[in-house]
């Protein structure tokens, strides 16, 4: 089955991973800007990173027939440095017209601090002023519930934002409903230990339905599995869900969400897969 991985940090992955993804049916990825594992020291460090995201990564992906899209921001971990954050936010518009730039992301909170919230609001303002879509990181573990509620407060306070053009990522059992109820898209991240397992992500689809739900691997430099989306597909099949439902979550939904971005241009492959509305594999 063809699929999109709507959140994966390919700068941290090898070219062999692109090949593996392609062999498993991945035809498109979107790569949000994130933390490199160390704090960058200057706005020029971010400028170089954005060049990598908008120039080299699309090229590398294309070697395997994968379309590459990206999101730009300074991430929440580095947002404690408000001055640097403001310099980066001021620089981002240099890249907003580059092919494949879908919007601002992944912005969000990490430890739910005042500085993080300040920088988050300034990113929101940039997105609202420039008409960009938004991809949002929610915090990890014990900070997730509190941070997600804070993020929803800030999003709902800004009447300029079109909720259909915002994805709140890394939802789990205790945060998915609030995000979906407010009219935002919700992303489920499949991680080996933290966040969702493929099995729990399928549970969430079963509980809330496929509307405005995305599933991703968030493959990065830490413990993560870039081929997690195929694991989700397999789990859906083994539970007897129809191919049409699986395809909606892993292919139709990402395209529907991304299509709201002016820089999303995608030539779908000629899909000649069995139009099985019947389950297989059980």
């Amino acid at each position: 089955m063809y699929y999109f991985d709507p959140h994966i940090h390919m700068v941290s992955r090898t070219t062999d991973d692109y090949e593996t993804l392609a062999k498993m049916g991945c035809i498109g990825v979107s790569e949000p800007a994130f933390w490199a594992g160390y704090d960058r020291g200057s706005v020029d460090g971010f400028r170089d990173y954005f060049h990598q995201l908008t120039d080299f990564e699309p090229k590398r992906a294309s070697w395997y027939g994968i379309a590459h899209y990206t999101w730009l921001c300074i991430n929440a971990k580095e947002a404690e440095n408000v001055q640097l954050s403001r310099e980066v936010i001021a620089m981002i518009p240099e890249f907003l017209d580059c092919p494949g730039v879908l919007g601002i992301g992944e912005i969000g909170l990490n430890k739910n601090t005042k500085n993080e919230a300040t920088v988050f609001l300034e990113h929101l303002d940039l997105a609202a002023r420039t008409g960009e879509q938004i991809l949002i990181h929610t915090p990890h573990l014990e900070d997730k519930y509190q941070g997600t509620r804070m993020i929803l407060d800030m999003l709902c306070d800004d009447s300029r934002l079109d909720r259909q053009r915002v994805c709140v990522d890394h939802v789990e059992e205790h945060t998915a409903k609030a995000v979906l109820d407010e009219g935002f898209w919700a992303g489920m991240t499949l991680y080996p230990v933290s966040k969702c397992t493929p099995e729990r992500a399928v549970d969430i689809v079963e509980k809330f339905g496929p509307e405005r739900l995305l599933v991703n691997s968030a493959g990065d430099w830490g413990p993560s599995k870039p081929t997690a989306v195929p694991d989700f597909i397999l789990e859906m099949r083994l539970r007897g869900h129809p191919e049409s439902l699986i395809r909606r979550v892993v292919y139709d939904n990402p395209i529907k969400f991304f299509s709201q971005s002016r820089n999303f241009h995608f030539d779908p492959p000629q899909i000649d897969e069995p139009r099985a509305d019947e389950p297989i594999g059980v």
Partner: protein
Amino acid sequence: MTVLPLDAEAVLTREQLKVRAKLIEIAAIFDRIDRAEGSVDDDVRMTEIRESIAILSEQSHRGARAERIQMIYSREFDPNWQQNLELTKD
């Protein structure tokens, strides 16, 4: 809500060995703690674990056990957080 293609018995049949393995794994971890020097009986993390295990067998949490356990491991949300952080939009 999406209708589950598998009925309850089929789900149990599919998951039973996984549940068994996870329960034994947790039991073995507790045994390992017991065998180690010192005590963690008063450790807040053990309290969280005990509360989580209790939720597994409580009928009142049927269908929402994962969400309930997530909340045990979540910091509280303060609806007045913006005022308390003195967050301004300018």
